[in-house]
């Protein structure tokens, strides 16, 4: 119960920041503030929660299938067609498992941490523009708010690591804190490149600005500004990979050294929160990169004017965004089975010696490109 509070609070905060925003639920309940916005926040929370917990189900399945094929195995194929329902079965199993709180743990913080971790993730889903109108909160500060919500989960992880009263958990939490705080620098600079190029912080407006180029891909940021935006995209992708604690940056939960790190002591439903968060954030950061660099919901080779306005077009756009994000998620899975986990000093070296200077060069180059 405690774990459910922070997500609700976070979505309310996200809803509140939409000063002059237009969104599905705001329109539904009237643009005014007060109870209308409260009700829209509740409904938005419900929708976002549903999306944010349905997508990880798909992604856990995809991860296991893809990793299976990369190791010449089959992956789950028993429950449902192609094993699609396997993740649901696992979720149900996790829900009914015993929820153990270690005797020497800080009970309150231990219970609160998974919710805090999930909170930022779920609130951030409200900011993703699936199509021109299918967006829960079109905050004018979209990208900035998203970065804030991503940075919020460090605290949840540190809290989990500390409250577990376990040295491995604590070490994992410390690694996580160091890693996340460091990788926020290149991530922020690369996000700044997108903000510079479109002179807006709203993800929806960014996606709109990337429509209607040559073959409907010419305006995508990586094609519009290939010299600087493409390296920036790669740097952003690596930084986001580190932010989601995915391999090869999964030091906070390194199984071989830290017995799965900060969530060593978690089990049952609380563990599933961490699990959910990891897969939801995989999609989230991919969608962020897509909205900023890969044209958002715009369909390649199909002029945007052909498919605007109707409900079907919106659904098609949302599908396109999901497919593009899924391609990036696939690359994440692919990288996981390609690269071994790197050492903590290598993580820091990569961030400070390689990604940050490249990001700065790209930033300055983008300034020149936009002013030229």
């Amino acid at each position, binding site marked *: 119960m405690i774990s459910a509070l922070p997500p609700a609070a976070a979505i309310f905060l996200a809803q509140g920041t939409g000063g002059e925003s237009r969104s599905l639920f705001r329109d539904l309940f009237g643009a005014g503030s007060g109870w209308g916005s409260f009700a829209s926040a509740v409904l938005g929370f419900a929708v976002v929660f549903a999306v944010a917990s349905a997508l990880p189900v798909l992604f856990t399945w995809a991860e296991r299938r893809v990793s*299976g*094929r990369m190791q*010449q195995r089959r992956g789950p194929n028993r429950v449902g067609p192609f094993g699609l329902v396997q993740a649901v079965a696992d979720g149900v199993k996790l829900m009914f498992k015993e929820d153990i709180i270690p005797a020497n743990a800080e009970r309150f913080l231990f219970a609160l941490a998974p919710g805090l971790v999930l909170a930022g993730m779920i609130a951030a889903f409200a900011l993703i523009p699936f199509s021109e109108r299918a967006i829960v909160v079109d905050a004018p500060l979209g990208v900035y708010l998203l970065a804030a919500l991503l940075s919020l989960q460090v605290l949840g992880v540190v809290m989990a690591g500390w409250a577990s009263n376990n040295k491995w958990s604590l070490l994992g939490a410390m690694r996580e804190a160091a890693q996340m705080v460091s990788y926020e620098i290149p991530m922020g600079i690369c996000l700044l490149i997108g903000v510079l190029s479109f002179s807006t912080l709203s993800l929806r407006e960014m996606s709109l600005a990337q429509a209607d180029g040559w073959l409907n891909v010419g305006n995508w940021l990586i094609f519009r500004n290939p010299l600087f935006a493409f390296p920036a995209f790669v740097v952003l992708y690596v930084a986001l990979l580190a932010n989601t604690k995915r391999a090869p940056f999964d030091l906070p939960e390194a199984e071989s050294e830290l017995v799965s790190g900060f969530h060593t002591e978690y089990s049952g439903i609380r563990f599933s929160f961490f699990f959910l968060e990891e897969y939801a954030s995989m999609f989230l950061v991919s969608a962020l990169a897509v909205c900023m660099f890969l044209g958002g919901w715009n369909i390649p080779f199909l002029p945007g004017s052909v498919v605007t306005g109707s409900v079907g077009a919106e659904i098609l756009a949302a599908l396109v965004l999901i497919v593009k994000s899924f391609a990036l998620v696939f690359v994440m899975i*692919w*990288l996981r*089975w*390609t*690269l071994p986990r790197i050492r903590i000093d290598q993580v820091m070296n990569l961030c400070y010696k*390689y990604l940050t200077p490249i990001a700065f060069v790209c930033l300055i180059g983008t300034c020149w490109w936009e002013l030229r």
Partner: protein
Amino acid sequence: MNRRDGFAGWVRNLWDGVFSTMVGMGITIRYFFTKPVTVQFPEEKMEVAPRYRGIHYLEQDLCIACRVCEKACPIDCIEIRFKRHPGGVNEWFEFSLDYNKCMFCELCCIPCPKSCIHEGREYSMVRYDRSELVLDLLTWKGMREVDLRTIKEAEEEKKRKAAEAAARRAAEKAKKEAAAKEGDPGKPRKKETPGKRDPEGGGDER
């Protein structure tokens, strides 16, 4: 990795990192598109070697109930109960093997005068209870026709190879004798280096 200094080293490190990642990703994606080698166990089974020793198979109509196998078994896991009626007709009650004990040494199959007991190709011995591992070969229908055929073929192959080996040994012996008659026994023996042995004709090694 050796230490690289200066900006050139930085660039080379960067290039190495990107390039090696690309190579690795190429390898993994190639594996992604190969067929999985997994065998879906309960439905399909892995093909075992032709001379695999699995759960026994008894050709009951050939068996003459001589109890040789029972005596040959070093761990006493075969139990045979039957009643011999006049006229050589046997009424079978039990021909059971205790697979809790059996170590698949094949010592029961070798002395069988009718060669009617074989080690089959069934290897799955998953049961809910240990007592279920005592199988009565009279009623156990775990053997498939194809297994039987493969066993027959394997045995024929074995016999053929043994015959071949015997023939070759005889030939060699004849050659050696011929060489000995010439009074120079050293030379032909030198030719018999292990590397020149025929890999197919493994029969003479046993």
